[in-house]
């Protein structure tokens, strides 16, 4: 049929039909009950004691052997159990699927772990030592993103008996139990998963946790309570996770009550606005010290940063309260060591030795090192172009130096795309850079060894292989390496704490990094929703939330 050859009469009837259809549709829509949705007009996010959580963090995968980002790990954490876990607000591990802390052999290489009985997977398969051994082997052998965490340290995993697991390490590692609390090191059903390089299941999850995956959509997930869960049942009837593409939508969805809880990732100005609303009682704000550390890397291979006086002068000049206020509206905990305050071993060495905004001492050191207004110490600071926060850090540092250092110390701010930025860090092309560190596991070791450890060193190139090269500082110290090895071998917590104190003292003396702050994490919750907690690994704990 050629539509353009319709007669006037047919055209008229077609138009009449369309008009009539529109009128009918309008009447039906207007007269029918408004759909029960999460729309703001309804303002009842979930009337059945299910909790709706909004986030911009979309999980890349739900396979625990490949999950490495907060989004995926947060979901895996809530749908799984680990051998060990953390209490919210504490960095001390406690048994979960293990029934006790591991027995460690004298040489520190063999860990024997007794396991809980009566646990079943979401698919009904019973949990035992074989299933746990399978899951750990799978974590290592499938070659997922976090596989190196265990591959670097684990020699073998065996089921000694039905409910006893033995793990042999390649070398002593006192922080190993913390690694077992990593969300991805959770048991998965051997019936649902396969062992083998690259064999991942990104869209399913079959673990032992209090929630099972009911639905995984393109922008949402539904977690239902697992009725055969061995432990305490969740305080809610289930969780809906709504994934939004940007922070503005998350912010607005929360304000319109389309979601009960907003967590990760709001912009600092949105957090400030929601905090003000919380103060007025419009909703609640829950905050906790995060585990992410922000710091400046100083490349010791590049002049003038090869001179300790210049690095120390920067440590003196940095004004953390001002930087935190300008960059994050004060939504951070100022940090004076690379180890966050959550750990008992934290020692505020940079506060004791350098303080904040001590510009006179900074100038004295630079003058002593031969710098002046005519011959200034010029340092290029770099950041990835997709990070507005790090851009602000670099710009504020530059402005601070211009204002206070009388031209003796000058910063030049540069940016590059993030792929190139991170690729080039180990090649040492950046003199100074602003970085964030997301820990892999919660132990002070994870804030020390990846920054200060070095396996191979030369006088010309500095660190050639090791953590400090990966971070871009190229720091090397025999004493530091020795201390790191000692703390890794030491099983006694008090003695380990002493070693960490020495490490932090040495860090403050050599200044390959200047720690700035550890981020605070914020969760915003509507009134009536209770018991919202964040665990120390930044995971929102779903099971306690209720309304």
């Amino acid at each position, binding site marked *: 049929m*050629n539509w*353009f050859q319709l*007669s*006037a009469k047919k055209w008229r009837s077609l138009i009449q039909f369309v008009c009539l259809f529109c009128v009918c549709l309008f009447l039906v*829509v207007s007269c*029918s009950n408004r*759909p*029960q*949705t*999460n*729309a*703001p*007009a309804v*303002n009842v*996010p*979930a*009337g*059945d004691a299910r909790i709706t959580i909004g986030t911009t963090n*979309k999980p*890349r995968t739900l*396979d625990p052997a*490949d999950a490495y980002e907060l989004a995926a790990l947060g979901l895996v954490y809530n749908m799984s159990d680990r051998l060990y876990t953390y209490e919210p607000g504490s960095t001390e591990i406690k048994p979960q699927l293990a029934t006790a802390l591991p027995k460690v052999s004298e040489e520190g290489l063999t860990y024997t772990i007794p396991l809980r009985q009566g646990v079943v997977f979401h698919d009904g398969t019973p949990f035992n030592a074989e299933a746990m051994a399978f899951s750990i082997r799978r974590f290592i052998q499938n*070659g997922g*993103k*976090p*596989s*190196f965490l265990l591959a670097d340290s684990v020699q073998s995993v065996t089921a000694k008996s039905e409910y006893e697991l033995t793990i042999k390490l390649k070398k002593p590692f006192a922080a190993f139990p913390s690694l077992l609390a990593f969300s991805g090191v959770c048991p998965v059903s051997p019936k649902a998963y396969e062992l083998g*390089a*690259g*064999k*991942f*299941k*990104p*869209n399913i999850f079959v673990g032992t946790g209090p929630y099972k995956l009911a639905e995984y*959509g*393109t*922008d*949402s997930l*539904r977690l239902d309570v697992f009725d055969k869960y061995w432990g305490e049942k969740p305080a809610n009837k289930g969780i*809906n*996770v*709504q*994934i*939004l*593409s*940007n922070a503005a*939508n*998350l912010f*607005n*969805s929360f*304000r*319109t009550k*389309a979601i009960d809880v907003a967590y990760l990732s709001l912009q600092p100005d949105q957090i400030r606005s929601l905090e003000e609303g919380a103060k007025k009682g419009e909703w609640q704000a829950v905050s906790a010290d995060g585990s992410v550390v922000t710091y400046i890397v100083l490349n010791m291979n590049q002049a003038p940063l090869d001179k300790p006086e210049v690095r120390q002068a920067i440590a003196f000049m940095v004004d953390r309260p001002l930087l935190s206020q300008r960059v994050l509206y004060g939504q951070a905990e100022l940090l004076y060591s690379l180890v966050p305050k959550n750990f008992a071993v934290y020692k505020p060495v940079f506060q004791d030795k350098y303080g904040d905004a001590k510009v006179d001492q900074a100038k004295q050191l630079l003058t002593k090192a031969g710098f002046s207004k005519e011959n200034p110490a010029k340092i290029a600071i770099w950041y990835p172009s997709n990070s507005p926060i790090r851009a602000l850090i670099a710009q504020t540092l530059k402005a601070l130096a211009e204002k206070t250092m009388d031209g003796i110390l000058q910063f030049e701010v540069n940016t590059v*795309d993030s*792929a*190139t930025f*991170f*690729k080039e860090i180990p090649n040492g092309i950046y003199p100074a850079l602003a970085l964030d560190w997301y820990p892999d596991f919660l132990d002070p070791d994870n804030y020390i060894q*990846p920054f200060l450890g070095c396996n191979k060193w030369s006088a010309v190139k500095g660190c050639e292989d090791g953590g400090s090269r*990966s971070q871009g500082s190229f720091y090397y110290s025999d004493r530091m390496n020795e201390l790191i090895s000692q703390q890794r071998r030491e099983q006694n917590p008090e003695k380990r704490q002493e070693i960490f104190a020495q490490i932090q003292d040495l860090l403050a003396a050599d200044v390959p990094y200047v720690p700035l702050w550890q981020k605070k994490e914020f969760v915003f919750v509507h009134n009536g929703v209770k018991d919202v907690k964040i665990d120390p690994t930044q995971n929102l704990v779903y099971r306690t939330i209720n309304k």
Partner: protein
Amino acid sequence: MSRSRALQYYIVARLLLAPLMLWTITTVVFLLLRATPGDPADAILGGRAPESAKEALRQQLGLNLPLWQQYLNYMGDLLRFDLGTSLTSRGQNVWEVIWQYFPATVELAVCSMTVAVIVGIGVGTLAASRPGTFLDVGGRLFGIITYSLPLFWVGMVLQLIFSVQLGWFPLGTRFPTTTTPPQGFTGLYTLDSILTGDLSKFFTALYYLALPSITLGVLLSGIFERIVRVNLKQTLRADYVEAARARGISEGKILVNHALKNALIPVITVLGLTFASLLGGAVLTEVTFSWPGLANRLYEAISLRDYPTVQGILVFFAAIVVVASILIDIINAYVDPRIRY
């Protein structure tokens, strides 16, 4: 040669050109992705993985092969309709990704186009039928404003007004998380809910579609309004229209029955190409409204340097545009006898 025989030759020629167009596009996509900075091994394993693991992965994925060899492998896979597996959601086939996200894009595109066509043609016709009046000037202004306004900004403002302030429309999703979406084979929630006979879900799906599709549709309507207004004005000055007036036919009938039909012919081309580009991803709309469509997924894949997914989605989009442009050419040739081929 008869017109129908010529038309057949034309169609065959256009179809034969399609593989060439697709090959050009896929080659450009392949080369551009290789030219962008960043190592897929870094993207997959992360910066903290040991170099030995990254090297092993490069070998496994064939990333250490010479570029020409990678290209041949890529083209070989494409010829077998194998778009590969996602690098980030490892284990997931790219076709799965496409079929999972494409229905949302189709649904948004269809609804937006419906709005755009109704508003664009309506305003354009009104403006052209009253030359020199307030309506004409208003129509012209409408066309310019809607054409020039940035979509992400309008989207944000409309969300603030209609969702946050007035609470009329929902925000940031395709279907409420508290309700199970309609289950059906098409993945189009409106269609699936009708097929399953669930009118409540049909209206819910429409309700969630409303704001994104009206925003996109109204902004696109400017294009149609301008074309319709200009063409209709010209047509209304044509001799055959004058002849119709001389015969005493009313202005309304002349407009609807004689002038509008001819004035709409150029609209087909624009309509087809706009629709194809919408199916090819209204990235800004989808990201602004958190619409879980394929363009939104492409945006994520680009930011995660998931090369197979980016390549696969782009090739899929390119195929849609190529097919759509061929269809438009054929339809144009069919409806407009003035076209020579």
